[in-house]
């Protein structure tokens, strides 16, 4: 790791100001950034820690909306969202291991947009709103391919607003080594229809499986998608599985998520 300056502001405004400095990067839980710095693959001059900003933390419910501060850890989401949004809490409780869950944050995960991360599936699968210091971004507009998002330079996610579904679940098949999602599927049922988002599988990052959404919107049962198969085009192929295997897992995990949401 190269030397860097660490600043730890206590307000959002101070963080935004600090990030305007040359070669500054925001640091949330650091579960991706710190290992990449240790491997000397990333060398910011300044890290601006977001974990000392009280307004970025916590889980709160208002009506059918659950708002989660960007710097809320996975462990806190798993615990604090359990009653209001069990599908999301269960997802958070399966990320990494206890050490990761006690450091990693929802904002950090969404800002990084790793193609195998879990949270993007929940955000896209619920049509969440990504709230930043400057604007609100619909999940459908936010995810723009692996490690690519709608965030501008210096823009900080402050919160994520979820519309609480009638039923939801996340089914994740583990990449054996990293235990990221080899394929993970989040399904959420709303009065307006069902959303299905897939992570881990596509070279384009998290995506919605439209055919499954249509089928499940008219019949929210595993049988409704029994005949569907997700195309293998543009699926990731690596030493942990072929494109065809991942495409197959999309169907399996979607069915399992529907059963779990049942």
């Amino acid at each position, binding site marked *: *790791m*190269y030397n860097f300056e660490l600043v730890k502001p206590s307000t959002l405004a101070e963080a935004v100001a600090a990030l305007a400095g040359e070669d500054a990067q925001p640091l949330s839980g650091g579960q991706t950034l710190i290992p990449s710095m240790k*491997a*000397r693959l990333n060398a910011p001059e300044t890290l601006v820690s977001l974990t000392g900003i009280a307004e970025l933390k916590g889980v709160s419910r208002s009506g059918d909306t659950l708002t989660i501060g960007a710097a809320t850890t996975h462990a806190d989401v798993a615990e604090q969202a359990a009653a209001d949004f069990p599908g999301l809490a269960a997802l958070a409780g399966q990320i990494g291991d206890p050490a990761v869950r006690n450091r990693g944050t929802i904002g950090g995960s969404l800002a990084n947009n790793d193609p195998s991360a879990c949270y993007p599936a929940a955000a896209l699968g619920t049509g969440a709103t990504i709230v930043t210091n400057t604007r609100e971004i619909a999940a459908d507009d936010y995810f723009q391919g692996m490690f690519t998002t709608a965030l501008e330079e210096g823009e900080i996610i402050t919160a994520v607003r979820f519309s609480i579904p009638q039923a939801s679940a996340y089914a994740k*098949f583990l990449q*054996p*080594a*990293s235990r990221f999602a080899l394929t993970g599927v989040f399904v959420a049922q709303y009065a307006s229809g069902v959303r299905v988002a897939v992570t881990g599988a596509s070279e384009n990052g998290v995506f919605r499986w439209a055919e499954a959404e249509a089928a499940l919107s008219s019949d929210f049962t595993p049988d409704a998608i029994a005949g569907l198969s997700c195309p293998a085009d543009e699926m990731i192929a*690596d*030493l*942990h*599985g*072929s494109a065809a*295997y991942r495409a*197959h*897992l999309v169907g*399996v995990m979607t069915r399992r998520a529907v059963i779990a949401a049942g």
Partner: protein
Amino acid sequence: MPKDDGIGASTKRREDVRFLTGNGKYTDDINLRGQAHVHFLRSDVAHGRIRGIDTSAAEAMDGVLKVFTSADFESAGGLPCGWQVTDRFGQVMQEPKHPILAEGKVRHVGDPICAVVAETYEQARDAAEAIEVDIEELEPVIDMKSALADGAPKVHDDLTSNLCYDWGFVEDNKDAVNAAFETAAHVVSLELTNNRLVANPMEPRVAVGDYDPWGDSHTLYTTSQNPHVIRLLMGAFVLNIPEHKLRVVAPDVGGGFGSKIFHYAEEAFCTYAAKVLKRPVKWTSSRSEAFISDAHGRDHRTKIELALDADHNFTALRTETYANMGAYLSTFAPSIPTWLHGTLMAGNYRTPLIYVNVKAVFTNTVPVDAYRGAGRPEATFQIERLVDKAARELGVDPVELRRQNFITADQFPYQTPVAVVYDTGNYHATMDKMLELADYAGFEERRAESAKRGKLRGFGIAHYIEACGIAPSNLVGQLGARAGLYESASVRVNATGSISVYTGSHSHGQGHETTFAQVVADMIGVDASSIEIHHGDTSNTPMGMGTYGSRSLAVGGSAIVKATNKIIDKAKKIAAHLLEAAPEDIELKDGKFSVAGTDKSVDWSGVTLAAYVPHNYPLEELEPGLEETAFYDPSNFTYPSGAYGCEIELDPETGKIDILRFIAADDFGNIVNPMIVEGQVHGGLVQGIGQALMENCVYDDQGQLLSGSFMDYTMPRADDVRGFTVDHSCITPCTHNPLGVKGCGEAGAIGSPPAVVNAAIDALHRAGHTHVTHIDMPLTPARVWAAING
């Protein structure tokens, strides 16, 4: 004699107190005054010619003491290979030089090119980035068969090809074996891969070199399983330092699994650089470095064939194996696919004719050498997969086919057709025990229950033989070993009766400090707490060969027994003098010497005190003091064996395998500490299951390591296994060592991979997926799914 710390007691491991409280003293805990740090600049290409190296910018950087290249090692030798294999035409193997730093060419990703020594590790690493290395990339050879093709690029320009050797065993049997296949009623064949593994001990390798200019003497602290071997190899062959000027210390070592047997470039570098710079020099491997610089394990491609007669008796076996050596010959690499593999190809069976052919191949990959089991897992995997396949093809029960062909209990000692003589064993007994513990009879009911949940249940069987305590020295010398394979022990009894034992074996997780103390406590009848076991320092221990090949108790323990017997003999003479009796009338029991048939006695400390305060002592006949050294050279290998059963559930939708039950019924001969034995078996099973289901070291066709971190190299975790049923009640004691012990360290890793794979194939066949006859390890979900749907 306190019952709780003698032979047979599950005494708690005394070393665990310091390990579990974070008070172990590992090599990285050693920090010497004035210590500098080295960082190795390693090749990021698999094969290339070094056109030039410019270190000037790096040498000008803050804190940099010196940048070393191969030019600094012109007077040094290459890293030696400790075993010379002679091929089937009588030619010795091709043996390339293995320089400390790359000379002229880089030959694998991770090959060290330069070494930067600086005040701090970060400075050394910063400076390494400023070195300019001009490398002309060359086409690499990664696949073994391609490496042997005509016109393939050569890893070593000065060798005739990439073939290290073409070994045949037993060459004189070849024609008879082929003839047996001509007349066989059935022939079963299988092509398989034994996947390349990375040992990944929890503690990465570390070396600290120190030099004392006033005594012109060197000390190397290193993460080694055999410090004396390192002293000999590095001192005599690499750096030309005589043994009396070189001390090698291997303190607490956090796991080795074979990977810390070998002499590595970094050890020689730190030792040498400390003298050049007149400062201690330290290197601590990162995990990423470990993946590309620790010797890897396994990596065989094999075709194996079995001939059977009409009654299903095995009549002949032949194999052709390609064994990857990597870019250089690691210390014992040539012996693994030959003498540690070919000699085990009889397995537990009476197969009368066997021929093994092994082609060892150089490729542009990290060197491959011994990893837990070393050659014997490869042999067992081939045999036990093939016997299972034979049973399936012949439509007979895999248990019965094995039983029918097992060597029977009355046939020991048993001369196999592949040189070795098994002294004892009872394979029918271990098989029966395993099936009983597995509730094999109740399997069908459990399978039906799984099927209701959409899961495929299977039961896999394997029976293994292994050879531990490689010996005797004069035989292994004939086979090409450039070392002896005895073990040493010194037993120093102190004046007040406490005992310091110095063993040439080395503990890096095996629990020697506990087990060896139990042996001595039991023999003398004193409390184990009065006995201390020392190991790992060449300055206070007689030349020993270290720990690998499950040899510590069978060989090192026997040396301790031998030295302790010398102590007891002398102590009896002292006691006889004190008791005014003849030495042959003295009996030692529970730490007390008494004259047979009388109530006259003297206790242990009375004798030890007399030895060191010899006022009333037969000085004319006996030297004072009570300290004895012994070297033990076994007359044969030991032959642990066992039956393993694995019950799995396979998810046909995802291909994922869950291990539900695993039963190990081992015959380890006599047992000193059952708890430690069980722990060793557990660890071995997890590593074997890891190989079978998860672990895989994968290179792309350009020689880049795709599985170069724990993000892609799957280590087994605690939640991947559900506990084991481990039994060691079937005991046929070893006939040729004083404890009757066989060794237990590697068994789990040897017997478990075929049991797991056989279970998977069983599950698939019972569910009608009969087109799947084999799946190469690791049986990842993706591979199993592809096999089902392929």
